[in-house]
């Protein structure tokens, strides 16, 4: 056929507006990067949205950006730049591997790349953090609020009695901005105290001191004499020494080992809650924080409590760090109360129709044998529990028959040590209130599925009797889950706590057994990657302190 037409090609279509002309976002759809840079002079805070017009993610993020812009356009300049068109300056100067890319500038500081979820509330929260990287802590109660947060807090004390600015303040301010570059989830919060009396509450005497608050371990003062007082160093120091009682997991969607790395650290409690980063208060989160603090509290007289009490109690003398140190030593010599090591075991269920489950609390008791006077190591050995489990499963048939509302206990000797024996207390739990389900690899998957669909039916059809059930359930639970205080110190197997926003990551909850269509997107599960089991907190339970 006509061969000349073979060589016909067509250049790419010319770029057109990506944002509507009425949008508060300035759309440089011809990629005018030079003009974009000029615009930066006009505003203290600038957000750049680099996009490619063909990119699905850019198109999806466009609305979110518009939404944020409509709320903040009086304080922040929003500039969108087409960084794809090959005639444009942006494409010629920048080399992106994905779109969109969001950069923020605080005056001359930047770019700070936003890498969080492409959702308006999260973007707005981050922009607000860039606008005010330092929180001004004006009073004692504000300090208490600031420090009681579950996320690590860094406080700088700067006396503004002389003009222009106290030495080091700008560095501290920059370090707060700097942290947003590294720690794009914004987990570390920076605050500044200017009042001497407020500063004294956390033993800060000298202006220019920087303090990192920690709940479970002692808090730290930035070691000026060892490290230079630079923004990078402060940020690095805070990142390295921060305490992560609870961590948010926010997979970015690309290939990532985040869950792999976190879950390989050991068993993890994943808590799913709907989260609005812009909300002023987070009651549910406060509740969870309390639980986390309890869990990490190793001794009643140690850790977070004294700090916080101290803050609340204005009359006490100021602690300096050496006092806290001494305090710590004291508690170490204090004999740790002896707790048995226990493990809850749900017996495998052979009849999927059966509505009952046998739950056993398996404990290791060391009655005989030589015990050291001082126990330094946490004395519940993981191997012991393993061994106990082994022996337990060998005698499983004994417990298997038990169908009883009372708790029946029996002791059996360890195979490995004549000095210790195991106690197993078993009871039968109606499947209605089953709090723990265990899925062991493949064999039990089928019954598990059968159960969850069964549970769903219950929710909808018998919702009223279920409320009554719940009353009976709570005492049940208290039997199996004893006081959690200091639990992290008692067992060798620490449970790591993680939060996930169920608005964004509900799919992980579904994968762990949560139902797809539930009104309350709250869910909690313990995942143990190594043992290949996971335990699910009954979804009918509200997420509150005692149940957790």
């Amino acid at each position, binding site marked *: *056929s*006509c061969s000349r*037409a*073979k*060589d*016909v*090609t*067509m*250049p*790419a*279509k010319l770029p057109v507006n990506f944002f509507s002309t009425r949008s508060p976002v300035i759309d440089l759809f011809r990629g005018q990067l030079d003009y974009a840079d000029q615009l930066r002079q006009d505003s203290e805070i600038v957000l750049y949205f680099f996009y*490619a*017009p*063909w*990119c*699905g*993610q850019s*198109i*999806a993020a466009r609305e979110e950006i518009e939404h944020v812009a409509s709320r903040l356009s009086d304080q922040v300049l929003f500039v969108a730049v087409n960084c794809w068109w*090959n005639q444009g300056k942006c494409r010629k100067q920048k080399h*992106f*591997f*994905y*779109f969109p890319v969001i950069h923020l500038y605080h005056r001359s500081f930047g770019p700070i790349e936003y890498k969080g979820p492409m959702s308006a509330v999260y973007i707005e929260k981050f922009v607000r953090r860039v606008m005010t990287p330092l929180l001004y802590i004006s009073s004692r109660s504000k300090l208490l609020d600031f420090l009681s947060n579950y996320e690590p807090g860094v406080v700088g004390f700067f006396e503004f009695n002389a003009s222009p600015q106290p030495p080091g303040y700008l560095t501290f301010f920059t370090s707060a901005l700097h942290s947003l570059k590294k720690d794009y989830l914004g987990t570390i919060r920076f605050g500044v105290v200017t009042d001497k009396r407020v500063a004294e509450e956390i033993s800060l005497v000298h202006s220019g001191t920087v303090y990192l608050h920690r709940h479970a371990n002692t808090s730290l003062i930035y070691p000026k004499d060892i490290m230079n007082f630079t923004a990078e160093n402060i940020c690095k120091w805070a990142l390295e020494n921060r305490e992560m009682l609870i961590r948010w997991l926010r*997979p*970015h*969607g*690309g*290939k*990532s*080992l*985040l*869950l*792999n790395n976190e*879950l*390989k650290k050991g068993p993890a409690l994943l808590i799913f809650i709907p989260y609005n980063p812009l909300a002023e208060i987070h009651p549910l989160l406060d509740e969870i924080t309390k639980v986390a603090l309890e869990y990490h509290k190793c001794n009643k007289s140690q850790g977070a409590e004294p700090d916080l009490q101290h803050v609340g109690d204005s009359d006490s003398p100021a602690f300096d760090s050496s006092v806290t140190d001494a305090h710590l030593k004291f508690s170490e010599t204090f004999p740790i109360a002896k707790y048995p090591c226990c493990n809850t075991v749900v017996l495998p269920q052979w009849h999927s129709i059966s509505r009952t489950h046998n739950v056993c609390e398996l404990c290791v008791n060391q009655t005989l044998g030589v015990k050291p006077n001082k126990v330094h190591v946490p004395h519940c050995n993981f191997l012991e529990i393993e061994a106990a489990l082994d022996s337990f499963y060998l005698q499983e048939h004994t417990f298997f028959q038990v169908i009883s509302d009372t708790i029946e206990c029996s002791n059996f000797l360890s195979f490995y040590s004549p000095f210790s024996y195991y106690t197993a207390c078993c009871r039968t739990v109606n499947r209605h209130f089953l709090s723990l389900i265990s899925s062991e*690899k*493949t064999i039990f998957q089928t019954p598990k599925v059968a159960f969850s669909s069964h549970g769903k039916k219950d929710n909808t059809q018998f919702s009223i009797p279920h409320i009554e059930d719940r009353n009976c359930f709570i005492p049940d639970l208290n039997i199996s889950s004893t006081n959690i205080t200091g639990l992290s110190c008692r067992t060798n197997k620490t449970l790591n706590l993680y939060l996930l926003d169920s608005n964004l*990551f509900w*799919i*992980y909850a579904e*994968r*762990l057994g949560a139902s797809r269509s539930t009104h309350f997107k709250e869910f909690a599960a313990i*995942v143990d*990657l190594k043992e*290949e089991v996971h335990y699910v907190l009954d979804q009918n339970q509200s997420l509150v302190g005692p149940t957790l």
Partner: protein
Amino acid sequence: SRRERVRAMFYHAYEHYLESAFPYDELRPLTCDGQDTWGSFSLTLIDALDTLLILGNVSEFQRVVNVLQEGVDFDIDVNASVFETNIRVVGGLLSAHLLSRKAGVEVEAGWPCSGPLLRMAEEAARKLLPAFQTPTGMPYGTVNLLHGVNPGETPVTCTAGIGTFIVEFATLSHLTGDPVFEDVARKALKALWKNRSDIGLVGNHIDVITAKWVAQDAGIGAGVDSYFEYLVKGAILLQDKELMSMFLEYNKAIKNYTKFDDWYLWVQMYKGTVSMPVFQSLEAYWPGLQSLIGDVDNAMRTFLNYYTVWKQFGGLPEFYNIPQGYTVDKREGYPLRPELIESAMYLYRATRDPTLLELGRDAVESIEKISKVDCGFATIKDLRDHRLDNRMESFFLAETIKYLYLLFDPDNFIHNDGSDFDVVVTPYGECVLNAGGYIFNTEAHPIDPAALHCCRRRKEEQWEVEDLMREFYSQKKTKKFTLKKAPNHGEGESANDPEDASSEKAGEKRNSKKSSHSLLSCPSQSFNSKLAVLGQVFLDNT
């Protein structure tokens, strides 16, 4: 919805083909006319036929069947690619033949063992048979449809051009009763297997007379790709353990020598040294193939690598230099190929990971924004600036659109899990069809594996099956029967209704009982695969 956008894309291209290009093979979207490319078969129409049914358009399907019956002639003096003619023409006609009853076409009494489309497929395939008359049994790459192999024809054929026949040819043999097709296809496969290197790899071009490797680059992409694909698909379609074990051997060597960080590179087939650190657009079928053997974790990890390349350019360049992170000179085009979308479709059936729908969304946006022109969709000549070329390959309607649509249409009949089926009376007895488990040929033409059991009169086999059925049911009554693990993908395996398909299931059981149980069934998934969604991957699963 996205599904409806894909449907609109199909009709935009299809209607302009009919209007401006038919009866030529392909539409030229920039000049709004047509040209012959792979022969003179109205190729786009044949290729798009079963997509019409998947979109639910039975009336147009019926019209096209009539048009093809009258219009297409294979007695023509045309040099045709043996490979392309097989996958597009034979494959397209076979799948249309098997789907025609579902599409409401009046079928003749002997269907599915006879019918006009089957006769056309057989006729086309017979035109290809002379190519297989070589000392090695490996076919020539090109054949003249009227005169057979041209004197002086080059004996150099690519590996895929030798090993991509078993799906169509075995189906033809089973339906027509003539074993010649399956025999030549198997012989060619075995010749390749025999000529693999000591380290277990094959190159990408071989001399079919002397069996010497002419191009010794080993990889999973261009020149080799569908050979591996057909070992797996042939194994599933024919429940053939030998083909599967061949693939698994290759798979080991491929992992050992070519895999780095979930990328697959090109290596020298004898030494295993890296020759090209390049990712090819054609290689993107591999995650889909891995999902068919149940290796979902590795499939997702590789898929996520490939997806980053799409995000960088809005398409996959023919070659992408991995260390440089950029396209390769002269290989910057994207002719709207389906492979990455195909993998997304398979993996979505297996994992329901929303990331896969996101790739689908990106593909729809990219193709519409970049390549849509007044007369259809144009090949992207250069992904760096999105310049367009005057071509719309027939696989755009046969594959790209089909897989996109199936990704967004979870209830499509193609995804049937066996809960639905048809019973057909044939001269050889009753026969179950359309129960799902479709095998897509490498041009995305679905073949119903159940149809392969319809057209043979073999009394002993039938009795054996009936015995097994009885045994199956008595077992079920007395013992608790461990059900075969549900296939974790919609496509590869035929999971049929227990009542009517027990013959097939019992047959499967019998087959797999004999040797290792796992060869033809998928392994159970690892514990952490539960959480391997939205980009999360886990280490040491393998």
